[in-house]
């Protein structure tokens, strides 16, 4: 069905091309964040459908894309794909004139990388496209950025991507932006706006960041930025998709792809940045950003994507003074106070003496008397009975709070949780009906869980059956829900990504931390020279073992290739990716491959007891092609010969006597050109005797070669 849709979209685009005489502007919308930041909510509902000021996130993104003249959107949904597809089918987006929304469904993708690879296979992307995730809120106009991107492309085909950035200074103390994302350090060429260096996830252990000096060789000046925020809005060229396909180890857009491109100077792909000033753009990555963005929306920074402009759903909302939004048909007691910056949804009932401020309250909520709500996000059909106190919490649909229950800051109550009478939910605790899935992978980038949550959901009721009674104690008498246990690691981070502001005690503590860091810094500064030297040794040290790793990897790849007789080009591809990830030169690959071949041959001969020469010949003749792509120049070939020497000296003494034979054989298979051999010989001329063993061996052969060449002349 998806395919059919795709076809339809294609047709649409066709005639679009006809009447517009250009490729329609396309966008890929990843409706899956591939993170677990929004657990436990995301176990039951996909993140993009979570209401943001009473409107699903994805509607903000789609509305923006539409208003920015995007014509085709491919919504990639993975976890809870059914829910998303159903939602979209019901929504108005699917039947818009000149704005087609196509869903691409997948069950087994665990990362943005996989998603893009899949999309590449569908080959639905014709030209430059916008890459966003379904939780982006923005009102920027893409025209200018696109223009710049296209012009750059004209000049330089390697400019594959343009990242949108926005000024936003991270906090000195918490080292995170107002959106709760880690501080970002970028190096940008001030003139061309090319991105040279990108470091998120700054590890505080390192006090200094190290830039490659070569940046300065191209241009005399570059600007280091710490006060910018990555909007996660990328304008990409089709190559990006193919790049993901080539390097199948790319998972994360930034951590792998961007950094991959930046370190890789072989392909020379370039990434550029486009800074937006007046317009708004932010991505909801965690609860903190959920809070900040909601407030921004209520303060109308995202205009026209604000509640009283019905950009997606039809619920007439009126904006009153002090930034209070009221939907229709609200019953509110006279004695209740609705404070500033608040949204109240349709059919909501508010009881006597209830005080609400800085909060979003969804449709059909029932709020009793003497309730205090501050900075909370209450979704649809929530019941809050008399005397409850809520501060900086998120309450999903259908939550019930029995009288007198209290939520400390930072609490998240997932769907249909019931908080018992007078029960006090401790701060930062996450409550859900579902049990906490066992953490199978600490890397939060890969979320397998969501795909198998369907199972959990199905087993949900009976689970509750037995859970209610023993859970009851967990969340107050006749309450329902499990308080998830928070592992130590997360607990440290809880305060960072939560809707509640950071407690002052924490801040002060952090401030001291910062100072201590400085102390440390000054300390080691006194012995700076030494420190530098150390770092060097260590650095070239790890260079060495890196190369060893590399060889092992290559060998492993090669052997696998042999055993499962994979196609050559695939092996080559893998080796390429290895090369990039280890940042090796081609000759390293060549020697590494050659090494592994020799090793293979050696093993064969040992195992089968055949003649070594024969085995070698077999192997080389079978797999020799692999070396081709890496033997671009004489130097590479010489490298191989040297490697061979090495082998003969160290690993495979067996080869020592056969050196010339194999060399000759390589020559016949013209894996190695004669001039390579000759140069090698010349190089060896002024080496000490121990080194010249093999040259001596090969003397005849070389002579012969010389004569041959002379004859040719």
């Amino acid at each position, binding site marked *: 069905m998806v395919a059919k849709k795709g076809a339809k979209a294609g047709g649409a685009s066709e005639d679009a091309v006809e009447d517009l005489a250009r490729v329609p502007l396309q966008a890929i919308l990843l409706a899956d964040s591939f993170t677990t930041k929004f657990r436990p909510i995301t176990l039951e509902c996909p993140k993009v459908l979570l209401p943001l000021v009473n409107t699903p996130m994805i509607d903000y993104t789609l509305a923006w894309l539409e208003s920015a003249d995007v014509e085709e959107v491919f919504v990639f949904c993975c976890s809870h794909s059914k829910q998303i597809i159903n939602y979209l089918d019901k929504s108005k987006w699917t039947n818009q004139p000149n704005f087609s929304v196509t869903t691409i469904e997948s069950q087994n993708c665990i990362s943005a990388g996989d998603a893009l690879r899949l999309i590449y296979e569908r080959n639905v992307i014709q030209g430059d496209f916008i890459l966003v995730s379904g939780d982006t809120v923005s009102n920027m106009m893409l025209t200018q950025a696109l223009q710049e991107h296209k012009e750059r492309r004209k000049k330089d085909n390697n400019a594959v991507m343009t990242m949108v950035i926005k000024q936003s200074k991270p906090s000195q103390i918490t080292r995170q932006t107002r959106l709760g994302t880690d501080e970002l350090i970028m190096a940008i060429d001030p003139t061309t706006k090319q991105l040279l260096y990108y470091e998120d996830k700054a590890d505080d252990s390192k006090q200094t960041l190290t830039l490659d000096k070569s940046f300065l060789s191209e241009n005399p000046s570059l600007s280091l930025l710490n006060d910018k925020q990555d909007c996660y809005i990328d304008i990409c060229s089709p190559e990006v998709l193919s790049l993901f396909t080539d390097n199948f180890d790319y998972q994360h857009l930034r951590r792998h792809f961007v950094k991959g491109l930046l370190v890789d100077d072989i392909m020379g792909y370039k990434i550029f940045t486009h800074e937006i000033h007046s317009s708004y753009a932010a991505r909801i990555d965690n609860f903190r950003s959920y809070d900040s963005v909601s407030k921004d929306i209520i303060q109308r*920074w995202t205009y026209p994507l604000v509640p009283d402009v019905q950009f997606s759903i039809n619920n007439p909302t009126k904006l009153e003074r002090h930034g209070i939004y009221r939907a229709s048909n609200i019953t509110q007691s006279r004695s209740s106070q609705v404070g500033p910056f608040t949204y109240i949804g349709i059919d909501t009932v508010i009881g006597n003496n209830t005080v609400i401020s800085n909060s979003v309250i969804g449709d059909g909520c029932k709020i009793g008397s003497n309730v205090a709500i501050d900075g909370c996000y209450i979704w649809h059909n929530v019941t809050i009975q008399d005397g409850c106190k809520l501060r900086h919490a998120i309450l999903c649909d259908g939550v019930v709070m029995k009288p007198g229950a209290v939520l400390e800051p930072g609490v998240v109550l997932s769907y249909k949780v019931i908080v018992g009478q007078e029960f006090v939910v401790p701060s930062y605790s996450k409550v859900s009906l579902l049990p906490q899935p066992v953490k199978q992978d600490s890397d939060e980038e890969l979320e397998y869980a969501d795909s198998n949550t369907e199972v959990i959901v199905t087993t949900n009721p009976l689970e509750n059956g037995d859970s209610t009674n023993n859970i009851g104690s967990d969340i107050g008498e006749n309450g329902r829900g499990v308080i998830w246990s928070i592992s130590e690691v997360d607990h440290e981070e809880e305060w960072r990504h939560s809707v509640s502001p950071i407690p002052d005690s924490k801040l002060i503590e952090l401030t001291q931390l910062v100072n201590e860091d400085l102390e440390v810094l000054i300390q080691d500064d006194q012995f700076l020279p030494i420190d530098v030297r150390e770092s060097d040794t260590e650095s070239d040290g790890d260079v060495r073992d890196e190369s060893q790793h590399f060889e092992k990897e290559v060998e492993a790849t090669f052997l696998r290739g042999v055993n499962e007789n994979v196609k050559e080009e695939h092996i080559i591809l893998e080796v390429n990716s290895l090369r990039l990830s280890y940042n090796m030169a081609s000759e390293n690959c060549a020697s590494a491959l050659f090494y592994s071949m020799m090793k293979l041959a050696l093993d064969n001969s040992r195992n089968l007891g055949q003649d070594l020469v024969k085995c070698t010949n077999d192997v080389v003749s079978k797999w020799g092609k692999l070396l081709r792509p890496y033997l671009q120049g004489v130097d590479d070939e010489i490298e191989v010969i040297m490697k061979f020497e090495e082998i003969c000296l160290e690993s495979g003494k067996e080869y020592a006597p056969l050196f010339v034979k194999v060399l000759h054989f390589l020559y016949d298979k013209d894996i190695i050109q004669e001039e390579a051999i000759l140069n090698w010989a010349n190089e060896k001329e002024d080496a000490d005797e121990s080194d010249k063993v093999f040259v001596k061996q090969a003397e005849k052969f070389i002579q012969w070669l010389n004569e041959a060449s002379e004859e040719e002349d």
Partner: protein
Amino acid sequence: MPDTHALVNDFLNKLKKRKIEGSKTTAKMTAELLRTVISQQRIPNTNQAGALIQAINAIGEQLVSANPVELAVGNIVRRVLHIIREEDLSLTTASIGGLSLQALSDDEDNIDRDDRPVLSAAAVAAAARSTLRPPSLQTLLEDVPHSAAIHQSSSSAGDSEEKTKSTDKNSRSRKLKHNVIETVNELIQDIATCHELIAEQAVEHIHHNEVILTLGSSGTVIEFLCAAKEKKRNFRVFVAEGAPRYQGHTLAKELVTRGLQTTVITDSAVFAMISRVNMVIVGAHAVMANGGVIAPVGLNMVALAAQRHAVPFVVLAGIHKLCPLYPHNPEVLLNELKSPSEVLDFGELSDCMEYSTGSGAPLLHVVNPAFDYVPPKLVSLFITDTGGHNPSYMYRLIADYYSADDLVLQHRPAVS
């Protein structure tokens, strides 16, 4: 009618997304949309007018709710409804005009009373209008046939109705539709030409060596001033830049290219300058029934300054800006808060908007209202395409253009 449906949706989207700027274009587009709708509308045999009205009503409701602040939409919808009623009326009268008319002396009340059940929607509308509406030129002209019509229909209701229907229902339906479309076209024409009509009057208001002050940018004002200029009047214009959108700058450019003496001042300098000004001429977003003006933000201040220095405050408004509604709490309900980023750069403020520290409550709130409400007592004169009017006269002008029972646009079961 899928195509009209699509059109309507498209227009709705545009309105919602605030893609359409300026009341004039909005009005024009609305009128054109409604025209197509009418032309597409299939007319039942009985009570064509009712059907049309219903259709327009339905769409009009959507359109208005799409952007309640853009009053021009509602105005045009109401105008069209009015047109339909008028046309229907004139047709009824025409169709039975041949019959002998008598007994003008009958008092309308009892006729209305006992005849209501059999009357067509149009007649009701007419009756309602005639009672609700203050006498104006138009009505005076129509009165004779119209009362006659009612009387006539009252005297021999049944057969006359059947007769008319039987004889020329289809011709008539076509006729009605045709006429309506005709008039709507005229309306569109009017909207298009209202600039010129207003501008023609410029000479009477702007005199030699005067100093005119205006704020923000309004196409009408440009035309007006230039018209005066072409009439060899020479005068100076002060342009208040109209923060935060600074359309005043573009206006100033425009004026200078047309060869007018122009001075750009900041909004805050208005009061200082106003004493040297002979007349304030501004455009409006909408003119309410009570003569109050919904205008670009800042104009209320200008109006107050003008009043303080007894400078005439003249508002130019095309007919499509006349709104039959009475403003209630206009500062809030008829206002729109635009994005704060027009006032301040978000990036600069990003660390003021840090919610992760302190109480989490936002300390900074940037408000950027689009409109001001200028109460009628501050307005000296309205210049519409039908000439200059006193604010207190507005309601009558409006009554000419709109029929009273369209004031609330919402679905209601059509009469009979």
